[in-house]
């Protein structure tokens, strides 16, 4: 009996191995044919990578994920490459586990270049300039975007990724129909903005809708506000120094910028729900009272992606519209704060290269641009793609800006930009700590 058992086991194992050895291979690994010409993208369109799979991870969920899938569907159909996208709300945390654990997705979509920079510094990101045609890139991107993709790695500066969708942030949204009926006027200066706020308050409503709750990322909308006022109250040099950590948070410049924010946020009756509700209101829920009938608050500063969170059935340009967040000091012109998604590559395979190259073309975001909620940074994209006035307007604002700066908290090291800056400002808004403590904490958290 006992012997029989071992015999059977041994035969079973050998049989299994033979089975594996004899089984027909399903798909041999794609070997780049030596003679094939053209870029990886051309070869992909020629059908060379048909049947391959490229995995992607990023923070797009819900509507955003659907729009992203739509925008790459054409590419998938034409090339036969299956792009498997996996979105997560806890993206910041989960991606570190996967990359540090040696199991990264092929392509990762970072909404924060700062986070990508930490992986580039560890030597995890692949230098895309090794296979992308730099001449083509220069023709298709504004130089500042390419500069922002250059990051430090153990092997010196590398181009750690390419820019996909971008957002304009310096926008104030308002419920157009009710706004016009009430006879309010769009402000073009800071003083007019404060006067409008006062007018709305005197009429009995809260002028501003503000919410900074965002799960583990709570606090980021406030950092946007501070960056806006920074750009409007001090020089670009100071802003860049601040982002690099050379200008302390506990400095007159940053304090003045925060003061400008709190001028609106902490004034009694200026924010719907009051100061305490700012920290408990989900940023996506914050603009919803604007569309109650009648509106309960009238102004909401947020990037153009926020339209995704507006109630369904509203028309841009009719039910809602936006204006440029006005300058404070004319000396600093009309700066625009932008953000965007940078796609970085972690596994080097021909089909991944092809997908990366595809992301450097306007066609890769065309579907999303047409669906609304995205701006293309690619110069070969067309203003005609924008399906609504709002997106086209944002694209124009970015074009007309006297200066463009990237969202500072996204450029700061993760410990600050995705950590202490958010947390300390949240604590400050909720009243748990005072401004001095908050600024000291942020400065102390800056990695040495």
């Amino acid at each position: 009996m006992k012997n029989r058992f071992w015999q059977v086991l041994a035969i079973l194992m050998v049989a299994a191995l033979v089975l594996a050895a004899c089984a027909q291979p399903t798909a041999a690994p794609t070997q780049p044919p030596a003679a094939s010409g053209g870029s990886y993208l051309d070869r992909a369109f020629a059908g060379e990578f048909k049947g391959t799979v490229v995995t992607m991870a990023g923070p797009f969920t819900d509507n955003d994920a659907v729009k992203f899938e739509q925008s790459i569907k054409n590419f998938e159909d034409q090339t036969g490459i299956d792009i498997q996208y996996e979105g997560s709300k806890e993206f910041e945390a989960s991606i570190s586990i996967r990359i540090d654990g040696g199991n990264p997705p092929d392509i990762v979509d970072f909404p924060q270049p700062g986070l990508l920079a930490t992986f580039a510094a560890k030597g995890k990101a692949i230098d895309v300039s090794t296979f992308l045609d730099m001449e083509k890139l220069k023709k298709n991107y504004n130089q500042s975007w390419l500069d922002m993709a250059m990051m430090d790695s153990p092997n010196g500066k590398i181009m750690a990724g390419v820019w996909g969708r971008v957002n304009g942030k310096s926008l104030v949204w308002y419920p157009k129909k009710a706004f016009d009926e009430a006879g309010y006027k769009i402000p073009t200066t800071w003083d007019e903005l404060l006067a409008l706020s006062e007018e709305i308050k005197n009429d009995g409503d809260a002028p501003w809708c503000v919410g900074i709750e965002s799960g583990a990322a709570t606090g980021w909308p406030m950092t946007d506000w501070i960056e806006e006022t920074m750009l409007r109250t001090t020089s670009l040099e100071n802003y860049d120094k601040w982002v690099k950590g050379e200008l302390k948070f506990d400095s007159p410049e940053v304090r003045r910028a925060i003061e400008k924010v709190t001028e609106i946020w902490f004034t009694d009756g200026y924010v719907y729900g009051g100061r305490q509700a700012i920290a408990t209101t989900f940023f996506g829920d914050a603009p919803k009272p604007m569309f109650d009938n009648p509106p309960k608050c009238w102004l909401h500063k947020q990037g153009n992606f926020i339209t995704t969170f507006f109630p369904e059935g509203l028309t841009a340009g009719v039910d809602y519209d936006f204006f440029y967040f006005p300058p404070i000091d004319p000396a600093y012109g009309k700066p625009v704060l932008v953000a965007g998604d940078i796609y970085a590559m972690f596994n080097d395979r021909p089909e991944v290269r092809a997908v990366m190259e595809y992301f450097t073309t306007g066609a890769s975001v065309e579907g999303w641009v047409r669906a609304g909620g995205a701006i293309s940074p690619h110069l070969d994209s067309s203003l005609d793609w924008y399906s609504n006035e709002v997106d086209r307007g944002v694209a124009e604002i970015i074009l007309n800006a006297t200066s463009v700066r990237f969202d500072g908290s996204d450029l700061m090291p993760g410990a600050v930009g995705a950590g202490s800056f958010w947390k300390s400002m949240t604590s400050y808004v909720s009243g748990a700590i005072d401004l001095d403590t908050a600024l000291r904490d942020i400065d102390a958290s800056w990695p040495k």
Partner: protein
Amino acid sequence: MSGTKTSQKGQKRLGSVFVNGVLVLICLVWLIPTIGVFITSFRNSEDIYSSGWWTVFPHRGWVKVEEIRVPESIDVDQPFEVAGVTADFSTLRQGIVTPDGRKITWIGNKRSRLVIVEEKRWVGFSARLTLDNYRDTLSGES
């Protein structure tokens, strides 16, 4: 074991009522949060955001019975008469409950010039319950 058997029995019953009472109370506290989420799962997102889940049960709530337009000629910062009460804008905005059980409220901001009159009535089970949330999560849509 001797003598007052009836009083012991009575004491026991009293004790059992007390024990069950305490337990029922604790169990209610334990159950309510879960019931809240269960009911919320049948509501659409706008309702979830604008009213508590317990409002789906029949309750006595304010129901609008009349809408009044305030003429442009009236200075609403001064007390004025509307629907039988005399008050200014900011007081009306908070809502005034009259002795005869009506509630008079200014809706919107100063420029809307809309005043509504509400009465307390029974509101039945909410008809706006939906299975959409289940359909969307189970089919993976958003």
